[in-house]
């Protein structure tokens, strides 16, 4: 446990030393807030709250896909990574440290969205719902963390960057994150429940308002967690087998 925290701290240190990396994951959702949410839904308390929840989901998704997808792939290129395997600890603390650091950065990347929402829109939330939402963010991080790990452990870093960029936008758009609940274009309403982003967004919406979750979206979210989890485990094992067997 102690060692996990040490690894967490060093992961964070390495990222914080290159602050532009932090700005990257926070920029897109904050910009989307300013360009789409503030002018269109800013005055309507309910709409603005849902829209903020959508942007939070968007932010969680992009932060996780990018930091794990690209971060892991880049680390695998470094000889430092095998060196840490010669220290008297298994790969567990390093992986756990990476996930904890990732979660911390995910929360950090949400701050701009929340600040914009609080100051420039009519969105409102009760303190209890806000606390619940903090927990929901951790839950919603799970599928995207697994997706990022699957990308990072299966691809070389140059390919990981491209794949992370390619998957993240259709997921955001297709899941209906860029529109209010129920108001996305027709074809998106049809495909949305089948994407992990939708189930994640509905969880956020249900936490901050009284959005009725659809069983299909929730079931699909569970399905995605299993699929992405299996993919991540497969990619991790394959990488271990190739490099350490």
């Amino acid at each position, binding site marked *: 446990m102690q*060692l996990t925290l040490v690894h967490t701290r*060093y992961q964070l*240190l390495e990222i914080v030393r290159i602050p532009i990396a932090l700005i990257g994951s926070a920029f897109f959702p904050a910009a989307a807030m300013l360009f789409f949410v503030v002018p269109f839904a800013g005055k309507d308390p309910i709409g603005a709250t849902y829209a903020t929840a959508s942007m939070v989901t968007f932010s969680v998704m992009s932060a996780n896909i990018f930091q794990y997808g690209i971060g892991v792939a880049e680390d695998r290129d470094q000889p430092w*990574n*095998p*060196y840490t*395997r010669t*220290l*008297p600890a298994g790969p567990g603390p390093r992986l756990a440290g990476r996930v904890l650091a990732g979660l911390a950065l995910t929360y950090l990347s949400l701050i701009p969205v929340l600040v914009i929402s609080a100051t420039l829109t009519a969105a409102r939330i009760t303190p209890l719902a806000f606390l619940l939402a903090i927990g929901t963010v951790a839950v919603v991080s799970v599928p995207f963390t697994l997706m990022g790990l699957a990308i990072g452990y299966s691809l070389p870093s140059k390919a990981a960057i491209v794949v992370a960029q390619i998957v993240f936008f259709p997921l955001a758009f297709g899941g209906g994150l860029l529109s209010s609940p129920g108001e996305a274009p027709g074809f998106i309403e049809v495909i949305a429940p089948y994407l992990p982003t939708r189930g994640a967004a509905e969880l956020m919406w249900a936490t901050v308002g009284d959005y009725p979750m659809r069983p299909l979206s929730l079931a699909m979210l569970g399905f995605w967690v299993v699929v992405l989890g299996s993919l991540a485990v497969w990619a991790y094992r394959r990488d271990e087998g190739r490099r350490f067997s």
Partner: protein
Amino acid sequence: MILARADQVTRRYGDVLALDRVDLTVHAGEMVGLLGPNGAGKSTLMNLVVGLRRPTSGRIELFGGDPRDPASRRQLGMTPQETGLPGTLRVGEVVDFVAAHYPDPVPRDELLDRFGLTDQLRRQTGGLSGGQRRRLAVALAFVGRPRLVLLDEPTTGLDVEARRTLWDAIRAFHAEGGTVLLSSHYLEEVEELAERVVVIGHGRVLADDSVDAVRSVVGVRRVGFVADDLPALPGVVRSELIEGRHHLLTTDADQLVRDLVAAGVAFTDLEVRPTSLEEAFLAITAEERPRDEPPVTAASGR
């Protein structure tokens, strides 16, 4: 007491046979040099000993256990490749990070002082010079008060002074009872540090003996010249005639030249060159080894 052991270890990478039935035993308190040309299999053997790789067949033991079990590595120290240090972390942070993995690490300031890095404490490793990076990389092997340290080419590419600093630190560790397995492709480095040398070539152990014994074998010179007829000459390990040019391998080139002159051989275009380790060992271990040669004792795995 045996700290590390390889027993008939073979390792393949696809079609490439990197190690071929290698035996190696490192006892407590030894300073063993692993000598061989690039690509001989030294790094593969080291990676097997620290548990980064699994042997294709055979057995590796580290402190009596499987090196892939973290508990077996508690008294092991290893060097990262210098290029692998995380560039954004400061020197002190890297040391603290590694120290966090051990129950009783060497205090940071003491370690940095021993490796002449005290002034670099707050520098990011990405900004260090090559020599400083290498010293830091070697220092990391000693953080956890190991009983066995593995150093893979510890001073390759270093200037003379930096090399001396490292050598002194390694010697000090050994003087206090530490065990060292270091690889190098410099005979000089192994001579300077090690008591026992294991020569590896083409994935095999070619010799496993004291430094003196191996030096006499490795110190083979190639004497080349053009001449018609050659009398029998003493001390020639191997002779070849390629396009009218004689190539004689000998452990004492000076004496051979004197003998040539004394025998009245009308040679021209004389050339004396050191042989590569590989060349020397291939020559020595070839079948036609003369009986008066110092034998390559305990040559195992062949």
